[in-house]
């Protein structure tokens, strides 16, 4: 790891100022960024830790939405969102392992937008709103391909607002070594339709499976997906699974999520 300066501001405003420097980088829980720094895949001159910002932590129910501070750990979401949005809490409870969940944050996961991360599926599958220090971004506009988002340089995710669905579930096949999803599907049923978001599968990162959404909006049952397939053209193929295998798993995971939805 190359060396860097380390600062830990106490407010969002201070963090925004600290990030204005060239080559400054925000640090959430560090569960992805610190391994990345060790591999010298990134070499910021300054890390701005967001974990000391109290206003960016916590889970609250506001009207028909669950609002989660960007600096909230996976463990806290798993514990504190369980009654209001059990599908989201279940997803958070299965990220990585217990020690990773004690450090990793929702804002860090969404800002990184790893194509195999769990949270992007929940955010896109819920039609969440990503709130930053300067604006609000709809999930449909936020995810722009593998490791790419609508965030500008120095922009910080301060909170994420998840509309609460009538039913939801997350079905995941974990890649056993990394515990990232090999393929995972988040399904959420709302009054105006069903959303289906797929992670781990596509070279373009998380995506909505619109054919499945249409079928499930008419009939929210696993067999409504019978015969539906996703093209394997854009699927990830690697030593853990071929593109065709991942394409197949999308259908299997979507059915499991629908069957498990509550």
């Amino acid at each position: 790891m190359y060396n860097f300066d380390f600062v830990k501001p106490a407010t969002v405003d201070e963090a925004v100022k600290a990030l204005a420097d060239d080559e400054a980088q925000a640090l959430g829980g560090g569960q992805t960024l610190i391994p990345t720094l060790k591999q010298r895949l990134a070499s910021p001159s300054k890390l701005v830790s967001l974990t000391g910002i109290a206003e960016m932590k916590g889970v609250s129910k506001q009207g028909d939405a669950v609002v989660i501070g960007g600096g909230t750990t996976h463990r806290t979401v798993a514990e504190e969102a369980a009654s209001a949005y059990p599908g989201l809490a279940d997803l958070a409870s299965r990220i990585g392992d217990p020690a990773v969940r004690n450090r990793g944050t929702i804002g860090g996961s969404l800002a990184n937008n790893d194509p195999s991360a769990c949270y992007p599926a929940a955010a896109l599958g819920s039609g969440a709103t990503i709130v930053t220090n300067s604006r609000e971004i709809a999930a449909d506009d936020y995810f722009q391909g593998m490791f790419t988002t609508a965030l500008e340089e120095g922009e910080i995710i301060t909170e994420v607002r998840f509309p609460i669905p009538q039913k939801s579930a997350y079905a995941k096949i974990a890649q056993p070594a990394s515990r990232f999803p090999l393929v995972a599907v988040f399904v959420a049923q709302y009054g105006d339709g069903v959303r289906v978001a797929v992670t781990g599968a596509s070279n373009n990162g998380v995506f909505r499976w619109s054919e499945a959404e249409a079928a499930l909006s008419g009939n929210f049952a696993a067999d409504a997906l019978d015969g539906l397939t996703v093209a394997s053209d854009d699927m990830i193929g690697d030593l853990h699974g071929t593109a065709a295998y991942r394409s197949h798993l999308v259908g299997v995971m979507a059915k499991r999520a629908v069957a498990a939805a509550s």
Partner: protein
Amino acid sequence: MTQVKMTVNGKAASGDVEGRTLLAQFLRDSQGLTGTHVGCDTSQCGACVVHVDGKAVKACTMLALEADGAEVSTIEGQANADGSLNVIQQAFQDHHGLQCGFCTPGMVMSAAALLKDNPKPTETEVRDYLEGNICRCTGYHNIVKAILAASGQDVSAIAAE
């Protein structure tokens, strides 16, 4: 270099560190607490698990400066005040929960974190909780057995497998 201060096993600890100094390096190199092992250095194996403000974390994937002002517990602080093994450590000895011993500090610290939140876990819950702790001797059955025994549950019916 920046000075970092924290409480380690109930005692004040401080030292000068770089931004990039990991908590595991600070504990081992600055404080001489070499019980926190660095196995994979990629946050997968869990040999470096310590508690920061009561929560299990991987000390190889946290900067020392991130722990500034925190209460840190390591394997060196786990024994009873008279130096005897604590309940979890004793159970690992009684049930042969270690072979080469390299993963053991992380296993014991993860077990302590689990039993604090869930004093009577099921076998499945123990195995799930240890997802991020790897034993390359593959001695998992006796580790799980030791943790169940440390929770006060009868493990005589659990086969050695």
